[in-house]
């Protein structure tokens, strides 16, 4: 019996809960499902390791996974990895936060008020199409080579997807729901808070995720333009000292951190979007 049918008969759909396996089994199954995503990287790493051990690829240029893991271990042992990781995470957090705050305010205002949209949106869309790296020389000139220019560059990167997601998300809100707000004579602020923002939340979350992705991209650019610490600095350092294992180690760290922070956003998003009646294929 589907949940829908049980509701029609006036019974709360509790039956579904009994069909679920026990919590421990369910947790195990959850882990196994998540582990499906590890199969491809594991197979690739194994092939790579084999190829290196048979001498098919020059280990000097492309060190095998075991060498990379050793390098990461050494970096952990010396404490360098934490220093670099924290420096990078800090920049991403501040830059992304700044970009999100500005994008949320501007996105909400331009989404709601057509006159502000006509005034600002063309400029913002124009700026959006400038390749972000083009800002680097200007930012260095304006803000120096230290933290300010780096954080601002990341903020610029995070800004556009978040702005676009929220602004278009608000404009795409079902007119029929907005009319309900009008019937109850909501003020502009109440309309934004009670209808427009919740309805635009799915688009906003997607915007946040792509914004975070760009923040990670831009932190590399920012750290490669001159930094004394950070994973991007580690990349450049690996190049200068001819240590491909260090380069690959920092690339792996970027992948891990990027995926981890995205997973956090997805979690938070799923929490606030649990009301969605969406297509989620089973199995």
């Amino acid at each position, binding site marked *: 019996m589907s*949940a*829908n049918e049980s*509701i*029609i008969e*006036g019974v*709360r*759909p509790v039956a579904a809960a009994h069909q679920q396996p026990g919590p421990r089994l369910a947790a195990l199954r959850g882990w196994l499902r998540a582990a499906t995503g590890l199969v491809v990287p594991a197979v690739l790493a194994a092939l790579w390791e084999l190829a290196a051990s048979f001498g098919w690829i020059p280990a000097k240029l492309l060190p095998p996974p075991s060498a990379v893991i050793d390098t990461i271990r050494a970096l952990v042992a010396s404490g360098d990895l934490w220093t670099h990781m924290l420096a990078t995470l800090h920049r991403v957090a501040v830059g992304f936060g700044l970009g999100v705050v500005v994008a949320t305010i501007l996105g909400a205002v331009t989404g709601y008020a057509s006159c502000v949209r006509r005034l600002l949106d063309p400029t913002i869309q124009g700026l959006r199409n400038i390749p972000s790296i083009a800002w680097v020389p200007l930012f260095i000139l304006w803000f120096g080579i230290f933290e300010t220019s780096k954080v601002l560059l990341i903020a610029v990167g995070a800004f556009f997807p978040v702005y676009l997601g929220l602004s278009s998300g608000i404009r795409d809100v079902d007119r*029929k*729901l907005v*009319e*309900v707000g*009008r*019937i*109850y*004579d*909501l003020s502009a602020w*109440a309309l934004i808070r*009670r*209808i427009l923002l*919740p*309805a635009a*939340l799915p688009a906003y979350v997607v915007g946040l995720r792509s914004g975070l992705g760009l923040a990670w991209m831009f932190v590399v650019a920012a750290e490669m333009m001159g930094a004394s610490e950070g994973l991007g600095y580690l990349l450049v350092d690996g190049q200068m000292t001819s240590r491909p294992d260090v380069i690959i180690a920092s690339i792996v760290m970027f992948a891990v951190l990027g995926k981890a922070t995205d997973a956090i956003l997805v979690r938070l998003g799923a929490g606030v979007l649990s*009301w*969605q*009646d969406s297509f989620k294929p089973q199995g």
Partner: protein
Amino acid sequence: MLRLERVSKRFDNGYLALQGVDLAARPGEILGIVGGSGCGKSTLLRLMCGLVPPTHGRVWFGGTPITGPRPEIGLVFQEPRLMPWLTVAENVQFGLHNLPRAERAARALQALERVGLRQFADALPRELSGGMAQRTAIARALVTRPSVLLLDEPFSALDALTRADLQSHLVDIWSDERPTMVLVTHDIDEALFLSDRIVVMRGRPGAIHAEFTIDLPRPRIRTSPQFQSWKERLLAALHAAINGEATAA
């Protein structure tokens, strides 16, 4: 109570939806408005609740002209239009923003009780069937205790059984509290089952074609001969209204 005075509505694109409509809903009655599609009956309702302003003429609520939505006039749309992120109870409370929280919750539960959905207070809209969602929408409109309730084809999207069920339910609610109701529908059967008075509209431009006072006793029996003969009279009037429109055009 609610009165339209020589109301015309021309849309921005130049289309004349209504021309010179005089119509009044009497206190405590159910006024049915029927007509073919595109005859301006929905526009009429939107004028009554102040969602759109008239181009000419006035809409009065008691002694004051209507310039925008007001709490005394409730509206039930053709679709439930529930906020998918709010629970059923929260949706019902939607229009009660000026009351303290406890009072809001109490009134929402009361309204849900009224439509028989109390045990679904914490469900999300996606868990409801079409009929239950529309009942929630009716509860949302009732919770502000409007003196006029406007209904825009409220049951047209439902299956025949659910529709008949909700129509009886609406009569129950009406006989308890006696709000004035204005019901727009294209369903003659529905209009006859519910209304004290029925106005038949013709279209392009929308205007009132005929008016009938329905003297059938309540509860009305759809299969009774009187009901059937009223139905024939109304159908004839509706056909005349639609054909008249065709010959005029």
